[in-house]
C-alpha cells in the first residue's frame, strides 16, 4: 500500500498532530548529523544549493567543519533545477530521498513505519485556514517543552512580521495550461517549464507556469527579508527566499510536496494533460545525471522516467487529495462560450483540432525599462496593428469554423529581463484597456525567488535576469467579447506586494505582448 501524504491543515489535531510531531523529531535527528554525512539536514540542503559564505554567515557551516569529499560535492550538491522542464521531476526525486531519510530516522526513534511527508495546500479555497502558516512551524517548543526544530529564525514573511498569504498569491491558473513543455520564445512557458539541459540556472531562462506561481511567490513570501535589512546583503534574507538556502527551512518540504501534488492534479484533471514523451525529458539530462542519497547508503541515479509514477517502489506514495481546482470544467468549451459560441458546439471538435500551435510571435512592446522602486509602476504597450488585428480575428467566432477546427490564439504578457537583488520581492501584475469598461484585471503574481542569482553577471544566467510570461488570454477574450477590435494602448501596472526599496535595483527590461497560434 502506498503511503499517503496528507494536507497539513486536515490533520486530526492542530497544531501538533502525530504526523508533525514525528516530522519534528525526524528533522531534529537529521539536524544533529554532520555535513559530511549524506543523510544530514545540511547535506540535503546543499543538494538544492550551497554557498560557502552565506552558509557560514547563517551558521550552517562552522569554521573547522569538514566538507564532504570533492566527489560527493560534484555528484550531489547544487542540483536544484529551476527555469527548466526538469523542475518537477528533479524535485520529486529529491523529495522522495528526503522523505525516506526522515522516515528511517523516525522509525529509529520508535515512530510509525508508514510516516509520509505532509503537504501545505495554501490554495484550498474551501479551507478557511489554508492561507495561514501552519502553526507547528512557528511554535517555540514541542508539546514536551523541547525546542521546536521546525522553527527557524530566518523566516521573515512579507515584511509585516507574520506569514499570511492572500488568495492572489497562490492562484492556480497554471493548472489551466494544456502543455507540459513550453518555450522561451514569448508564448507559454508550459505547465512544467522549458526545454533545457541540466539547469542549475541558465542564460535564457523562463519559469514554467507552476514554477512561477504559486511556487516562486510562496518561496519569496515565506522567506522574506528583514524589514530594515541591507538589500545588498544576503544575510538580510530568509532561508526560503534564496535557492542556496531554501531547503534548510523545514517548511520547504511541505511547500514542495504541494507543488508535486499539483503536478498530479494537473495530470488528472484532463486526459489531454500529459507529461513529455520526449526521451530528452524522460531519460535526461544527458550532461549531468540527477543523484540523491538514500538512507541505506545507496545512491539513486534517476531521471523523469523513474518518477512519473508516484506508486513506483522508490516513491511509493499518493496524495490525500488531487482534486481539480476547477471542478472538472472543460476550459476549452468555456473559452468558446466566452467568445460567443453556442453552448455544446465544441463537442464536435476533436481534441487534435483544439490544440493551439506553439509558435509565438511578438505583437507589441512598451518602450522603456521599468524601475520598480516601491511605488506602483505603469507602462503602455504599443502594438503592431497588423499582428494585433490578426490575433483579434482568430477570436472571432464563425459558426462554420466549428465544423472542423477551433484554435483561437492565446495571448501572453512578457516581463523580460526581470532583475534585482531582492529575492523576497513579489509583484502583482494588472492589465487594462482604455476602450473597455471592465476594471483593470490582475493577471498574475511574480515572485523574485532566485532573481539575485539571475542578475549576477558571473552566475549561470549571465546577468540577464529572468523572463516571465503570463497568460492573459482570458482577459483578451473578454475584451473581444466586449467588442474591442484592437489591442492598442494596453496598460500594464506592476504593484508591489512586498516592501521594495530603490536599492533593490528591481527593473523590468521590456514589457511585451505575444500571440501564440498558427
Amino acid at each position: 500500500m502506498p503511503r499517503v501524504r496528507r494536507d497539513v491543515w486536515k490533520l486530526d489535531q492542530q497544531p501538533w498532530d502525530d504526523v508533525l510531531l514525528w516530522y519534528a523529531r525526524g528533522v531534529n535527528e537529521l539536524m544533529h548529523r554532520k555535513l559530511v554525512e549524506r543523510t544530514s539536514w545540511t547535506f540535503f540542503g546543499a543538494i538544492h544549493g550551497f554557498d560557502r559564505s552565506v552558509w557560514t554567515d547563517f551558521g550552517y557551516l562552522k569554521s573547522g567543519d569538514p566538507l564532504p569529499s570533492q566527489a560527493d560535492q560534484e555528484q550531489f550538491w547544487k542540483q536544484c533545477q529551476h527555469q527548466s522542464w526538469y523542475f518537477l521531476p528533479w524535485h520529486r526525486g529529491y523529495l522522495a530521498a528526503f522523505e525516506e531519510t526522515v522516515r528511517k530516522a523516525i522509525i529509529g526513534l520508535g515512530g510509525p513505519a508508514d510516516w509520509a511527508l505532509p503537504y501545505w495546500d495554501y490554495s484550498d479555497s474551501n479551507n478557511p485556514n489554508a492561507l495561514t502558516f501552519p502553526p507547528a512551524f512557528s511554535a517555540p517548543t514541542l508539546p514536551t517543552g523541547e525546542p521546536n526544530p521546525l522553527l527557524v529564525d530566518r523566516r521573515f514573511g512579507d515584511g509585516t512580521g507574520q506569514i499570511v498569504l492572500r488568495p492572489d498569491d497562490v492562484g492556480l491558473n497554471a493548472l489551466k495550461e494544456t502543455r507540459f513543455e513550453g518555450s522561451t520564445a514569448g508564448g507559454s512557458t508550459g505547465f512544467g517549464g522549458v526545454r533545457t539541459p541540466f539547469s542549475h540556472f541558465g542564460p535564457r531562462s523562463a519559469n514554467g507556469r507552476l514554477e512561477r506561481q504559486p511556487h516562486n511567490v510562496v518561496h519569496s513570501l515565506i522567506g522574506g527579508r528583514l524589514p530594515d535589512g541591507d538589500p545588498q546583503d544576503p544575510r538580510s534574507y530568509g532561508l526560503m527566499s534564496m535557492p542556496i538556502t531554501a531547503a534548510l527551512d523545514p517548511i520547504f518540504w511541505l511547500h514542495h510536496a504541494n507543488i508535486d501534488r499539483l503536478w498530479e492534479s494537473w495530470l488528472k484533471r484532463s486526459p489531454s494533460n500529459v507529461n513529455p514523451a520526449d526521451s530528452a525529458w524522460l531519460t535526461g539530462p544527458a550532461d549531468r545525471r540527477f543523484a540523491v542519497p538514500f538512507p541505506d547508503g545507496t545512491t539513486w541515479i534517476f531521471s523523469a522516467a523513474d518518477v512519473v509514477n508516484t506508486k513506483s517502489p522508490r516513491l511509493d506514495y499518493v496524495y490525500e487529495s488531487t482534486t481539480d481546482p476547477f471542478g472538472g470544467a472543460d476550459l476549452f468549451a468555456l473559452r468558446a462560450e466566452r467568445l460567443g459560441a453556442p453552448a455544446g458546439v465544441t463537442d464536435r471538435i476533436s481534441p487534435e483540432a483544439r490544440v493551439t500551435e506553439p509558435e509565438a510571435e511578438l505583437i507589441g512592446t512598451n518602450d522603456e525599462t521599468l524601475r520598480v522602486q516601491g511605488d506602483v509602476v505603469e507602462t503602455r504597450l504599443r502594438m503592431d496593428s497588423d499582428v494585433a488585428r490578426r490575433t483579434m480575428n482568430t477570436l472571432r467566432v464563425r459558426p462554420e469554423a466549428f465544423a472542423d477546427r477551433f484554435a483561437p490564439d492565446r495571448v501572453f504578457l512578457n516581463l523580460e529581463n526581470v532583475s534585482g537583488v531582492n529575492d523576497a520581492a513579489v509583484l502583482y501584475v494588472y492589465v487594462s484597456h482604455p476602450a473597455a469598461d471592465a476594471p483593470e484585471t490582475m493577471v498574475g503574481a511574480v515572485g523574485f525567488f532566485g532573481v539575485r542569482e539571475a542578475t549576477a553577471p558571473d552566475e549561470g544566467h549571465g546577468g540577464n535576469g529572468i523572463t516571465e510570461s503570463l497568460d492573459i488570454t482570458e482577459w483578451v477574450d473578454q475584451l473581444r467579447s466586449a467588442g474591442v477590435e484592437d489591442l492598442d494602448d494596453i496598460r500594464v501596472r506592476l504593484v508591489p506586494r512586498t516592501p521594495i526599496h530603490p536599492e533593490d535595483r528591481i527593473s523590468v527590461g521590456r514589457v511585451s505582448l505575444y500571440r501564440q497560434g498558427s
Partner: protein
Amino acid sequence: MAVSASTVRAADRHLRRLWFGLTTEAGPPLLAVSLAGLVLVLWTGGGNSVPHRHAAQRVLDVPAAGAWLLMLVAMMPPLLTDAVSHVWTRSLKRRRRRQVLLFTAGYGFVWMTAGWLLVSGVARLVITFLPGLLAAPAAVAVAALWQATPAKQACLNRCHALPPLSAFGLAADRDVVRFGMATGGSCVGSCWALMLVPSVINSAHAVVMLAAMAFMLAERQARCRPAAWRIPFRRR
C-alpha cells in the same frame, strides 16, 4: 599526466551541453553556416590569413581580410545560438531577418576591425620579429597568458548578455546593431588571443583552427563564473 575521472566527466558534460546548444532553436542553421565556412576555408587552401614576411605592407590587405572573414564565418556562428535566438524571438516577425542581419553586421564589423589589428598588427609583429619556429609557441604563450586573466573571464561572462531590444522603428535597428557590436566586443575580448594561434600558423592551419574553435565552444557553453586569475585552460 593522468586524466582524472572528474576531468573526463567535466569534458563529457561540456560535450553534451554543446550538443544541446547546437541542436535547439537557432543551433542547426548556425551550424550549417559554420560548416559552409569550414568547407570554404579548406577549399581556399587552409585560409592562410597572415601575409608572409616580405609581402607588401599594404594597409588594407584584401586577401588577408577575406581569409579572416572566412575564418570568422567558420568559427563564430555556433557561439551565437543564444544571441540569434534572442534577436529572432524578441523581434516582430516581419522584421526578424532584417534584425538578424543587422546584428550580424554589428558583430562582424567589430570582429573585422579586431582582425585588421590582430593580423596586420600583432600577428605581423610576431612573424616579423620572431624566427618562424618561435612564432607559434609565442602565440600560444600569449593566448595562455590572456586565458589566465580576470579580464578574459569578464569578457566571457559578457558574451552571455541578452539585453532587452526595442521592437519598432529606428530604435529597433539601433538596439540590435548595438547588441551585435556589444556581443562582438565581448567575443573579441574573450577570443582574440585564441584566434591569434591559427593566424600565425600556416601549416595545419585548419586543424589548429578547429581545435581553437572546439575550445571556444566548450568555454562558451560553461557557466559564467567570477572574474579572477585562473590557471589557463582549466575549468575549476
